[in-house]
């Protein structure tokens, strides 16, 4: 018998006489006070609370203008493959580990947890190595809850999906919070299709 079969048979034997409990059903995100904000509002509020930045623009034209202004002052850039050409800042593209700015295109986002959903196909190094990370997010791809987001992802899973919900941070040195430990210390969500009301 292989190690696999020995482990599985021990597991089966251990629980054989135990009463089984059914799965309790889907996670309901239960809260004492129901949330009364739109998904985009919820995402922006929590993302900012965790130290992320968010800018809301009406359309791709405005997004492009914002990007030009923001990219001014950076020396080099690494760009995710899903970023539309109109949003490529006019900066020299470099290897991600040397880039000052990373730009990614989000697969979606979540209001409940304040998370951006990033797809490995967009390019993992662009999402991780530059000290500043701008993520372009279409407002109509923001889910209300994590469960809804996972359901929408499950039919098309790449090698990895990442949820980025704020800057890289740590309190491991004397319980003092510092940012930008390994991943980007600044993360900016550029939400396209929803101006701040």
């Amino acid at each position, binding site marked *: 018998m*292989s*190690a*696999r079969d*020995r*482990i*599985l048979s*021990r*597991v089966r*034997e*251990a*629980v054989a006489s135990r009463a*089984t*409990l059914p*799965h*309790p059903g*889907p*996670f*309901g*995100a*239960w*809260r*004492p006070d129901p949330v009364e904000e739109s998904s985009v509002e919820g995402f922006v509020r929590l993302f900012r609370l*965790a130290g992320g930045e968010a800018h809301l623009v009406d359309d791709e034209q405005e997004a492009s203008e914002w990007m030009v202004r923001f990219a001014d002052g950076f020396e080099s850039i690494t760009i995710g*493959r899903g970023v539309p050409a109109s949003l490529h800042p006019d900066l020299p593209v470099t290897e991600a*580990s040397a880039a000052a700015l990373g730009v990614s295109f989000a697969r979606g986002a979540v209001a*409940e947890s*304040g998370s951006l959903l990033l797809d*490995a*196909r967009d390019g*993992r190094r662009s999402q*991780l190595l530059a000290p500043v990370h701008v993520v372009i997010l279409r407002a109509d791809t923001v889910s209300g809850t*994590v*469960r809804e*987001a*996972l359901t929408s992802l*499950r039919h098309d*899973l*790449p*090698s*990895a*999906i*990442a*949820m*980025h*919900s*704020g800057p*890289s*941070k*740590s*309190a491991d*040195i*004397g*319980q*003092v919070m*510092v940012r*930008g*430990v*390994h*991943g*980007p210390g600044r993360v900016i969500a550029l939400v396209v299709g929803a101006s701040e009301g």
Partner: protein
Amino acid sequence: MSRGPGAYRAEAARSLRDDPGVRDSVGSATRSFDTHRAKAYAEIDSERWRDWARDVKTHALTHLAEYLEQAETRLTERGVQVHWAETDRDALAVLDAVVGRHGIRTAVKAKSMVSEELGVNEHLERLGVRPIETDLGEYIIQLLGEPPSHIVGPAIHKSLDDCRVLFHERLGTPLDAPPDRLAGAARDALREAFLAADLGISGANFVAADTGTLALIENEGNIRLSTSLPRVHVAFVGIEKIVPHFEDLAGFLQLTARAATGQPIGNFVSLIQGPRTGDEIDGPEEVHVVFVDNGRTALLEDDEAWEALRCVRCGACLNICPVYRQTGGHAYGWTYSGPLGAIIAPGMLGLKQALPLPHASSLCGACADVCPVRIPIPDLLVYWRERAVEGGLAPLSEGLGAKMYAGLAERPGAFAAAAALMRHTPWKAVGRALPVLGGWMQERSAPEPSPKAFRRLWEEGIE
């Protein structure tokens, strides 16, 4: 440096006596963690979330074999190489093959308690591979040559000043450097390691059986880097980490973060299906998942203590424990410390090896109040104590002392006489020769008894 659980009492006493800064650092960090947890629980219907999480985990454990097989099938479909390890040696043997085949020289490690349990770093060194811990807290204790003191914050026993001295000596930062400067120095050193390493090693917080997804929670980004940059990724996963459905992660990712640090979710969550696919430009070419038993099936076989396998390793029970707060994790002499460590050690290591950890508790019950998966920790502590007595593993003096007390408590006259005798005994001189008390006094000095009985003081009108 660890002398094992058996040395708990001596190690706890030594820490409190010789290293009082540990208690200060651990106390302030755990109180801060717990304050954040309490606030984060108040924002949600935490009773309902915890009932749900308990029931999903119980369900998963009672169908564990089927879910493990399903996860294996999904992972294999995605090109992951799945291994099964009955013991630590089996698990480490997976590394032998990977290191040999790829000529690996450097490995970056994401924080992983199971890899501590298995002794992955020591084994890599034996293979000639340099293992580099990349979580900032793990990096600090690796520089110091110490094991983690806490499941979530491995270096919480070190103060800012401790870190300043360490980084000054090892990385050349000034002695008065602010924390972000220290973190920057670590970042620079570790960034080089990330870019050079051929192997990334991680654990997993959860595995979703129906998609084969490994879910990992963190705040620094080092887990994402460790599982994205090197050519090969090896994940060591305890067999109890299974949840049935991909969507179940919604509850567990959020509840675990709230219980651990009070965040709505970790700032980085990785949901990993396998090696890079044809339409991806980066990510590992090879992914291995090692399902680890190493004592878990023995714990599962126990009709009471199997409930401890629901644990999600959030550390909430450590943070609120008045006993853990005194010493941090090192005194427990094993990878898993605090109330959780004390209830899984007897099942995983054997009761004899785990003693006296089930006694490292006042049974106040605070741990059960905060556990996100409602493990009846105090009940299980008492259960293991009873098992120790039944198995003849409790010291004879313990039973003798209890019997003596029971005999006196049933006879008021004898009780009063014994109490009077005790008030006038020169404890410092004779205490060490007596059962129970002698053991206690080896590590402590006894307080002076009150000259008057409590009953007498009561009659005289005490406050």
